[in-house]
């Protein structure tokens, strides 16, 4: 695996470190990593800061190449990477800045149920979720979409499955990032292979670090903002983490292959060929953007269908309609995506291509893209931790617009490889250890729980604290898991 990072990391302040653009030839801007002293020591253990420096070499990159505190080694871009390019200055789009799982993201559904309401039936609830929500290798969804319907779904996003199939509430759309639809998506650019991989997978969880979790709000850090989100200490919520499934993976694969020789065509020199890219305004760039949009819309449909399945399951177990259980969607965020967004650059409003690779949008109060409900408090930012400790809900702050292209972190970040996690599990029952922590878990894959055990992840509090202190996103509520299903 990668060696340690030995390049420069200059302290900017208590929460930021700079890689100066003089560090390596080709860097157009500095790298900036959000981390405190405790985190930066671990960050240097792999070469992810080198990847931040490499991204700084992308044509048209604006201001700096960023990384959030959950930074770790990825493909081309590090996980936790954020980079904005200016298309009018030859700025590029890079599939490595989005990832294979296009629009992997998280949504949170609140309920009126308290922990006391749920605990007597938690085992039944988790068992029914496990039965009702397709998860794991080879599990198909409840709807098998035909090719023409897939095209519509990829064009219209989650509103399609809500309005055509009744798999959700109209109100869900308003509180989904981008209203669950990237405009101008081009489903015709999605290959037949991608359609074959994805056609049975819309409404399925997947495996690996994807999950559906029943959680209890066990700490509120900002009552006013939590109230706006419908969250209160003691209430139960459901968090879903999943993405575009095989369709998105194949869209990325297809475009990585198509773009192999594109940098050479445009005279772009790259320090890492995994940063393969094309100018945003090129034919190749527009093709990737169109296909990525279609895959992103598929992912929103995916999470929307699972929302419906979660509501159905709660209704079944608690013998009450989901509406009466107050199961409203708090928000849905994408954390692997590239979007065109306006930012102030040297006093002018410029439309930039913002890559978020394991980073979450975090718009502050007042941002016009936010739904009315959140315009006065800021956008909910959903940050999964691990299945033993907690996850966090944050909200975007003004610092995100000035400093991080409207971005925050996306998770805790792994501290242990899958293999190391499995070896560390020898002689232990992760299932029992979770039970001892008050978490009922069900997993389909033979090694899923071992690979995803809490010890495999950093403590998410160390990540969110940095961005809270830096004025990027502030803590709203902590959610403790009491039940989890995994593929």
């Amino acid at each position: 695996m990668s060696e340690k990072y030995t390049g420069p990391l200059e302290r900017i302040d208590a929460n930021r470190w700079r890689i100066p653009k003089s560090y390596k030839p080709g860097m157009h801007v500095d790298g900036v990593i959000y981390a405190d002293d405790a985190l930066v020591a671990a960050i240097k253990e792999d070469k992810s800061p080198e990847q931040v420096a490499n991204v700084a070499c992308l044509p048209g990159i604006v201001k700096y190449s960023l990384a959030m505190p959950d930074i770790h080694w990825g493909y081309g871009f590090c996980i936790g990477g954020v980079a904005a390019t200016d298309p009018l200055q030859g700025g590029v789009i890079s599939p490595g800045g989005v990832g294979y799982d296009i629009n992997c993201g998280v949504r949170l559904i609140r309920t009126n149920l308290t922990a006391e309401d749920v605990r007597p039936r938690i085992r039944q609830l988790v068992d029914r979720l496990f039965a009702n929500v397709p998860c794991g290798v080879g599990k198909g969804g409840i709807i098998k979409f035909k090719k023409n319907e897939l095209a519509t779904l990829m064009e219209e996003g989650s509103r399609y499955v809500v309005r055509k199939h009744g798999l959700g509430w109209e109100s869900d759309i308003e509180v989904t990032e981008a209203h669950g639809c990237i405009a101008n998506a081009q489903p015709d650019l999605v290959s037949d292979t991608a359609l074959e991989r994805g056609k049975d997978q819309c409404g399925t969880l997947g495996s690996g670090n994807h999950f559906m979790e029943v959680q209890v709000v066990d700490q509120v850090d900002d009552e006013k903002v939590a109230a706006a989100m419908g969250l209160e200490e003691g209430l139960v919520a459901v968090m879903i983490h999943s993405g575009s499934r095989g369709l998105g993976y194949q869209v990325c694969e297809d475009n990585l292959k198509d773009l192999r020789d594109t940098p050479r065509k445009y005279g772009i020199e790259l320090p890492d060929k995994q940063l393969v890219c094309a100018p945003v305004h090129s034919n190749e760039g527009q093709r990737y953007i169109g296909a990525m949009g279609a895959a992103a819309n598929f992912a929103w449909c995916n999470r929307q269908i699972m929302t419906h399945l979660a509501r159905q399951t709660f209704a079944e177990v608690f013998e009450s309609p989901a509406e009466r259980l107050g199961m409203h969607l708090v928000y849905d965020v994408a954390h692997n995506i590239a979007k065109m967004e306006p930012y102030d650059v040297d006093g002018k409003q410029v439309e930039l291509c913002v890559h978020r690779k394991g980073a979450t949008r975090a718009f502050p109060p007042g941002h016009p893209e936010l739904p009315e409900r959140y315009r006065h408090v800021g956008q909910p930012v959903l940050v999964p931790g691990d299945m033993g400790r907690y996850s966090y809900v944050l909200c975007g702050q003004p610092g995100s617009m000035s400093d991080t292209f409207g971005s925050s972190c996306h998770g805790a970040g792994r501290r242990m490889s899958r293999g190391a996690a499995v070896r560390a599990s020898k002689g232990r029952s992760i299932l029992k250890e979770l039970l001892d922590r008050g978490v009922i878990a069900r997993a389909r894959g033979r090694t899923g729980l071992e690979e995803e055990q809490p010890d495999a992840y950093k403590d998410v509090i160390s990540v969110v604290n940095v961005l809270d202190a830096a004025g990027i996103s502030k803590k709203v509520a902590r959610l403790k898991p009491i039940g989890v299903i995994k593929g």
Partner: protein
Amino acid sequence: MPRAITGPMTSSFEIFDHTADAGIRIRAATLPELIQPATDGLYTCIGELVGSGNTAPFRFERTEAAPDAATLLRDYLQELLVLFETRTRRLSRVQVGEFTSTRIAVAGESQVVDETRSVYYREVKAVTYHELAIREIPGGYEATVIVDI
């Protein structure tokens, strides 16, 4: 560091740690002999896949203008991944017609995976270009492939 080889290299693969994903390291005496263990390595990342009759022919061929054996190997493994995901099939017989720095040609047979006798470990999203390499080592070749989990 490669081990000292005192005789013909035995084809082999091992799965190695790679933070959030999985790495496959393959060794063989010749380039064509890398193909079978690479195939086995990919399937091991997914699980214990037991085939069950319903045999169908398989063919994969690709040519690169510039020498790039590693990319050809990656492309082949990606094809196997797609075959598994879209048809629930795994190769039961692998016959390497050619594998050079510019061309790969593999034929064989695939079988439907019997899900009642198979065990799935995890979903593989893609065979990546990350740390993708084939290098000569004493006695043969070593290939490194990272799969995205």
